[in-house]
């Protein structure tokens, strides 16, 4: 084990339950106080094929996946064939009694002896638990928490199989390093990016979510749907993405804080609606979980290829903001900010994630629900100035918003250019004034921008610039380089629009070399920086093979 972490890769066919094992194991690790980074790699199919669930774990705080594997839990032969090469020198394979590993020791598990076929998952979980030195009791409880209610009929058998496996495995001779103990066992939540975003939305007061299923974004509406009854919100599956965004706009107009979640292709269908939100000045939060395109592309993999598309989506000109969380904590915190900005600035606010972020489980410090900053409703109780005009021209560009049906004032909004009272107009003087009113909101939005996070040396030899989910990998690559004596800093943007050059241009200019790190082929964020500041990022680490950014990839590309 290099440093103080282990990387466990569970591999097998879709339908073999590897996600179940992975989630149970990962959750057990989190409950034991460890930090984790899960990377899910799956195919666009339901059974068969080859999927993996990787858990990197450490007693220290980690935020990036790792490529090399210490423990390979192979649910089929193919997993060994495909991944043995990724094993570290001390790596161990856990497999069935027949193990095709050629260069690494193998712990051959007598699955059939230990349990009925249906409980093979529990056996695999148990073996991994023992190897990692987990507490049997804790794993058993985790198992029960997750399956006890849903399948009480098998609770007992589950426990028995786990105990049996534990006994068997503990008795085996195995040369596998134990995980270093955690120093303090603080409570952590176990969640992936999608769940963090959904929880943040709930905490922000989301009341309406319409969606059309699309990987990797579907997890958000599903998480919301599971809580819809308890939390009092409506989650509605739409007939298509066009309906989804228009429904959300309608619900928001009528007074429900609203969101949609989709991926590139579905978002493409929403772009007319984006423009509608801009024109009618209706708040709406739009989550785009990126995956590799063009078109259907690689539906279950990851990429950061839609930044420019999202930034310019929708015809005509109107202000917007785009968040790009680097961690689940960011996801929770920033989606709340997104709802707040949507309400206050009355328009579309974007949330740009990706498959890696969406599916990556982490150990997250519990959110102090009572202490969260308030999220604005953006709605007035009554008209301060009469007659009420939905689009009253103001200095900030923000007009007082009333809800239809709530007061006696009529709320009139229009997708055409409109007068202050919301009625269609072709008066070109009004047009100009309305454009300027809308655009003024953009200037105010700038005052609220979350500044990028600089970490490391203030005047570095090397500055790595990144955004969104690449954060963990970039931070760790930088740490490695620093450990090697280099003066390296990182600059991570969790809000990628608007850009406020004063917040970061000095950093770029003070670095001897700046390298952009992003998961796309065009270097989209680097282009954007140049457009906004003139600063040309000369060197780039780009990735567009569908896999998440890793510290190793960055170091390789840097030739380090």
């Amino acid at each position: 084990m290099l440093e103080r972490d282990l990387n466990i890769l569970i591999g097998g066919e879709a339908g073999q339950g590897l996600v179940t094992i992975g989630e149970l194991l990962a959750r057990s690790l989190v409950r034991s106080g460890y930090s984790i980074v899960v990377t899910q790699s799956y195919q666009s199919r339901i059974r068969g094929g080859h999927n993996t669930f990787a858990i990197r774990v450490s007693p220290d705080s980690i935020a990036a996946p790792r490529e090399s594997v210490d423990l390979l839990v192979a649910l089929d032969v193919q997993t060994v064939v495909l991944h043995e090469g990724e094993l570290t020198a001390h790596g161990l394979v856990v497999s069935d009694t027949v193990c095709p590993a050629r260069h690494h020791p193998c712990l051959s598990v007598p699955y059939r002896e230990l349990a009925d076929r249906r409980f093979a998952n529990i056996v695999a979980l148990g073996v991994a638990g023992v190897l990692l030195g987990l507490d049997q009791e804790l794993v058993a409880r985790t198992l029960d928490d997750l399956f006890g209610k849903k399948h009480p009929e098998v609770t007992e058998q589950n426990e028995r199989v786990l105990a049996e496996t534990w006994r068997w495995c503990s008795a085996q001779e195995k040369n596998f390093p134990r995980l270093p103990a955690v120093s303090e066992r603080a409570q952590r939540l176990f969640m992936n990016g999608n769940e963090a975003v959904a929880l943040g939305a709930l905490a922000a007061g989301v009341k309406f979510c319409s969606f059309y299923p699309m990987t990797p974004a579907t997890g958000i509406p599903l998480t919301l749907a599971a809580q819809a009854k308890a939390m009092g919100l409506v989650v509605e599956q739409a007939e298509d993405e066009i309906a989804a965004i228009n429904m959300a706009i309608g619900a928001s107009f009528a007074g429900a804080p609203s969101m949609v979640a989709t991926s590139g292709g579905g978002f493409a269908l929403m772009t007319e609606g984006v423009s509608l939100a801009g024109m009618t000045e209706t708040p709406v939060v739009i989550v785009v979980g990126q995956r590799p395109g063009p078109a259907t592309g690689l539906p279950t993999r990851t990429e950061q290829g839609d930044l420019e598309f999202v930034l310019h989506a929708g015809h005509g000109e109107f202000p917007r903001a785009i968040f790009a969380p680097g961690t689940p904590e960011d996801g929770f915190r920033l989606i709340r900010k997104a709802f707040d900005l949507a309400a206050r600035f009355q328009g579309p606010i974007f949330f740009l994630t990706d498959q890696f972020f969406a599916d990556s489980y982490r150990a997250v410090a519990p959110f102090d629900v009572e202490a969260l900053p308030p999220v604005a409703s953006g709605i007035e109780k009554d008209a301060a100035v009469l007659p009420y005009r939905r689009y009253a021209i103001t200095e900030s560009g923000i007009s007082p918003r009333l809800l239809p049906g709530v007061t006696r004032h009529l709320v009139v909004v229009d997708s055409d250019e409109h007068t202050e009272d919301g009625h269609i107009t072709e008066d070109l003087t009004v047009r100009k004034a309305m454009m300027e009113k809308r655009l003024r909101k953009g200037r105010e939005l700038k005052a609220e921008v979350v500044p990028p996070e600089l970490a490391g040396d203030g005047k570095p030899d090397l500055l790595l610039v990144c955004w969104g989910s690449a954060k963990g990998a970039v931070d760790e690559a930088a740490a490695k380089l620093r450990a090697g004596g280099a003066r390296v800093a990182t600059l991570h943007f969790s809000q990628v629009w608007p850009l406020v050059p004063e917040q970061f241009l000095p950093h770029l200019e003070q670095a001897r070399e700046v390298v952009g790190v992003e998961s796309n082929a065009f270097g989209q964020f680097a282009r954007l920086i140049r457009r906004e500041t003139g600063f040309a990022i000369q060197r780039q680490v780009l990735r567009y093979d569908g896999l998440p950014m890793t510290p190793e990839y960055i170091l390789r590309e840097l030739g380090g």
Partner: protein
Amino acid sequence: MVSIEDYGTYETAWCPGCGNHSILEAVKRGLVAARLEPHQVLFVSGIGQAAKAPHYLNANVFNGLHGRALPVATGAKLANPELTVIVESGDGCNYGEGGNHLLAAIRRNIGVTLIVHNNQVYGLTKGQASPTSQEGFVTKAQPEGVASAPFNAAAVAVTMGAGFVARSFSGMIDHLAGILPAAIAHPGFALIEVLQPCVSFNKVNTFAWYKQRCYQLPEGYDPGDRDAAMRVAQEWGERIPVGIIYRSGARLPLEQRFAALHQGSLLEREVDLSTLKKVMQRFV
């Protein structure tokens, strides 16, 4: 008491002689008959000549995108079921660009009244065929004549089990004004298709053409009889029936199906922190 004056009088951008004028008048009368005050009503429309209608009366208005009025209306109704939500738009808007949403609205049985101004042509964009244009109709876009079969919304709606399906004609203001309150009162989705001459671009289906053909369903007609409704809905040619073709309250409207809405609208609800904390616990 609400009066027709409450709904105001506006200058319109419609051609003189256009059927839209009468539809507007009938809608206002219908709203008064339904005893609704302007602020209780939300009109949602798309883009087209018909879709301008909500600008010409006093009410809450969301004038959205071409073809996308129904999803906006659905969202608004779900957010605040207390609103009376009426969609007004053209045949192109609802059956062309918005066809998929019509199917979905019927399936959802959302409590929205849809008034389709059917002039069998795209008026605002100057006379291309619409989904209801008759076969052979010649336009600049269809110089060889329309090849597609016309869309019969009433027939499709009845087939799909929509709970309120009616047809009227802009030349019958009282008729339309009379149907509207019933449609609004209907719990669930209600379709009213209004035949409407376009004096500028439809020289075939003129006022006289409709006038000659439209006949009111007889007194004894039972809109609860689905088979009869199917037959009547399919009738289109020398004679065109107008009236409430089908009516059934069998299905619950969508807005009554969400647990979250059992406590009323989604408006001004504080985040329930204690429940939220419980939700968080599931992630431990």
